[in-house]
């Protein structure tokens, strides 16, 4: 590792004031420290924010709940209010990594974890995300784990988080504190971005912005939900593709649908059109199949990840079916 300085921020103000261009906030460190060891991230200063007092789960004004940014993934996913009101989120979070990593990982850090593209991790390889202008090694190399939607010439990476897929299906909001002392709230679908010409930017945060909370509106999909994660071993592996599916059903008709996928794009991929399509429809095989076809109609895979299209269709149908069939 390269030498760096370390500050344990006592409060939000200290964290924000200490921030410089070459600083990084430190949450659980499960992603950042790995990347520092790999020489991918090279901060001069780490400002530890994991111990700041944003560790609550509380009711908010929108009739929903607010998750503290520094609360651990484990405590969030296992919290009785989350299990009961947002079981889709809980299920997605518990499918990630291992218990040990979830104990360390913070909610804010989870949103900001970086891609698992192998070229990004290996400093001797070209990678526009790590080193803008060096090229994208994956495009003409190994791209089995890469995007089928929304990529650019510059980068075809995917966002690896499971938690974020559920948040995308549920219309969450992210609250951030700015270095000037003000704060702002970002719609979850606008939080992560597509690579475009700036693959080095994963999201729409400005330098120094500190995530302190995630807001959820009224409880969603607590009866009909499923998070399906297809991976190469039964646990402790990132998704090849994953589906967060939530349904609200009244008198045999879908009144609201939430559908997002992981492992297919630079951001959690929300199928707003498909959600609309499903609303008012009956929850049955024919409609689920049509939804899957519709979801995949614009998919443009690469040589190495062609399998994702078929896999994703099967995953969508299965996730919707499991969500529907779940005993209320």
């Amino acid at each position, binding site marked *: *590792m*390269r*030498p760096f300085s370390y500050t344990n921020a006592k409060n939000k103000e200290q964290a924000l004031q200490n921030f410089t261009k070459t600083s990084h906030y430190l949450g659980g460190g499960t992603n950042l420290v790995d990347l520092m060891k790999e*020489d991918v991230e090279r901060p001069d200063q780490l400002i530890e924010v994991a111990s700041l007092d944003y560790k609550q789960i509380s009711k908010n004004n929108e009739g929903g709940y607010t998750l503290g940014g520094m609360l651990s993934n484990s405590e969030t996913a296992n919290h009785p209010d989350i299990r009961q009101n947002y079981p889709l989120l809980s299920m997605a979070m518990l499918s990630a990594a291992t218990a040990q990593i979830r104990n360390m990982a913070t909610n804010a850090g989870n949103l900001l974890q970086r891609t*698992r593209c*192998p070229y990004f*991790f*290996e400093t*001797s*390889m070209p990678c526009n995300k790590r080193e803008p202008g060096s090229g994208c*090694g994956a495009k*003409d*190399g*190994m791209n*089995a784990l890469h995007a089928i939607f929304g990529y650019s010439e510059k980068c075809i990476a995917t966002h690896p988080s499971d938690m974020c897929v559920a948040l995308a299906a549920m219309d969450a909001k992210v609250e951030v504190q700015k270095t000037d002392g003000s704060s702002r709230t970002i719609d979850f679908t606008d939080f992560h971005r597509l690579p475009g010409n700036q693959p080095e930017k994963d999201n729409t945060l400005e330098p120094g912005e500190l995530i302190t909370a995630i807001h959820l509106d009224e409880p969603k999909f607590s009866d009909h939900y499923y998070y*399906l994660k*297809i*991976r*190469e*071993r*039964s*646990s*402790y*592996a990132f998704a*090849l593709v994953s589906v967060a599916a939530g349904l609200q059903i009244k008198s045999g008709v879908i009144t609201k649908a939430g559908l997002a996928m992981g492992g297919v794009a630079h951001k959690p991929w929300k199928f707003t059109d498909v959600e609309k399509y499903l609303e008012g429809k009956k929850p049955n095989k024919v409609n689920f199949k049509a939804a899957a076809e519709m979801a995949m109609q614009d998919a443009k895979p690469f040589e190495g990840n062609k*399998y*994702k299209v*078929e*896999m994703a269709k*099967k*995953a969508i*149908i*299965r996730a919707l079916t499991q969500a529907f069939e779940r005993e209320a």
Partner: protein
Amino acid sequence: MKTIKASGIGNPIDRIEGHLKVTGKAKYASEFPVENMVYAQGVNSTIAKGKITSIDTSEAEKLDGVLAVITYKNAEKLKNYPKDMTNFSLTTVAPVFQDRQVHYYGQYIACVIAETFEQAQYACRLVKVTYEEESPDIHLDKNRGKAYKPGDSADFSRGDMDAGMREADVTLEQTYTTPIEHQQPMELHAAIVNWNDGKVKMYANQQILNQATTSISETFGIPKEDVQIITPYIGGGFGSKLNVYKHITMATMASKMIGRPVQITVTRHQMFTNTGMRQFDEQEMRLGAIKDGSLTALAHHTTSHTAKNLQYFEACGNVSKMLYKTPNNAVTHRLIPLNIQCPSSMRAPGEATGSFALESAIDELAWKLKMDPIDFRIKNDTQVDMGADKPFSSRLLVECLRIGADKFGWENRKMQPGTNKKGNWLIGYGVSAASRRAPYMKTSAKIVLELNEAALNANIKMDATDIGTGTYTIVAQTVSEYLGIPVENVKVEIGDSEFPVTPGSGGSWGAASYCNGARKACENAIAELKKKQNITESEEIEVAELLQQNNLTTFEAEGTAEPSEEYKKHSVFSFGANFTEVWVDKDTGMYRIKRMVNVGSAGKILNPKTAYGQIIGGLTMGAGMVIAERTQVEPNYGNFITRTLADYHVPVNLDLANIDVVFLPEEDKIANEMGVKGIGELGITSVAASIANAIFNATGKRMRDLPITPEKLIEAGLEPGVA
């Protein structure tokens, strides 16, 4: 005498070294407190082929704590590889920094020595290298023209293959592939080396000390007696710690240069690039059988890769020479030199991979013959190793299959794939036959007896190693058995090259060799003591009493055990059968191994507990071959894309459920006097095939390329004949 019975061989006692390990008291190579020690770290090349044009070490050298940077410019001259392609063997020299050539991605090109580990690591990043790059040979397909036959042992044939195929009613021609895999034991390769006055003493986790000292002495051109290696505990090797790798050379060179002890710990990343691997194998199988199930022909052709300057191949086809009765047989192995590091032995080299191809093909042929795959195997059983033209010393394969079938509930298997269902799951049963050579080699040991009051204590010394298998325990049990003393009275000292020579741990020969060596030392001690008192050999007398009669409180003896003439006239193997039940998700391609039954006949089981550990470890590793283990090579640059344990997937608990292990009682005194056969590798052998066969039984899809990942399962079509 009760305690003696409870601790002699065959008893499932707890490991005598277990407590030391779980309390952290057992010292591993990098953990010895050595004064004045410094740290070395290797710098790896970032190209796969070319020439170093410049190395700028100035920035690294300026860093606080950095003592030196070694490159080809200031490295001492070492014995290099011979000009022609050398066989990579246990004693092959390990030269480093001898020229500017780069042969594979990740090759060491410099070594930093610093006061602290952190300084050394940071300084590595500051070494600036430029290259004259050449286009590397990375693809097997693009280099097929360069395939060559690696020596006489690579090919074998018996009878007339083509005639055998013509005679067959049913034939099968299929190709199977297994990927590059890495051993990745828990403990990283590490050493603390002290070069002092022309002599080298090191703590280093080497599996075979007598060979490692030869390799080091030849690399540096110093007498073998001047090299000492100490390694009381090794945190797993799986073959990767058989050879001396270049980090040992770097640390030795550094210690000589700096005049201080040097510690080196290979990083997890370097465990992919610098300490060996299992090679990719492409295996073409041709089989023929007549209607009653008798095999008429069996061919096994393997194509693999090797390094540009070193040669290694795992003999995948060997299993096809000996496992079944077949009049016509052909086996070949071909290698293609690539700019990838030299492959090496990984647990059951040849057998783990070869048995995947053979036992899958056998299953496929049984399906074509509409025969039960167990009946088909039994039909072609043989008590003669036709490949070596020798009888087996003992072979209980049929018993393993029958008893296993019973225990597993094979009769509930549905012949037609896709017919056993539960919810979204398709359930399948699979079987495979396992075999693994059970070598036994010359082994020496020294025993020191000590009488304390009336209690007899014994101290046994040998240069054996414990790679996590339980060597301490089984050697103690052997001494307990042959001296008739409780195991608590036995002290085992191993892992020091100054102790009597053994073949070390590897190739499943450790247990049989170590224990017979220990036995011989005990027997010699008793015989010598009896002789002094003119007591006939057959007379039964306590060893303590013998010492008293001799008026001795202490006595030393040495013993060397070695294979008999009978041993050489036979083929000595362990056998087994694997049974697997898998549940495959009908849509997602994900699957779980619900249960496995393994039945083994491996001679005398020294300690059922440690033996069980070996088998379940083997089964898990075999399952790993199927589930996810694979190292991928970047097609343009030649580096390994899988470079950490986060992306090199080994099985997790949830992948595997119940494992049942049965050992058949077997008396095989031809194998060796104690009738001990190896089990370290038997457990991994053919496991992959039993799982792949179960997946076929579940889904009707034949998966011939490991690992069997969800994407492959989703894309695969149904086999002809599947309803």
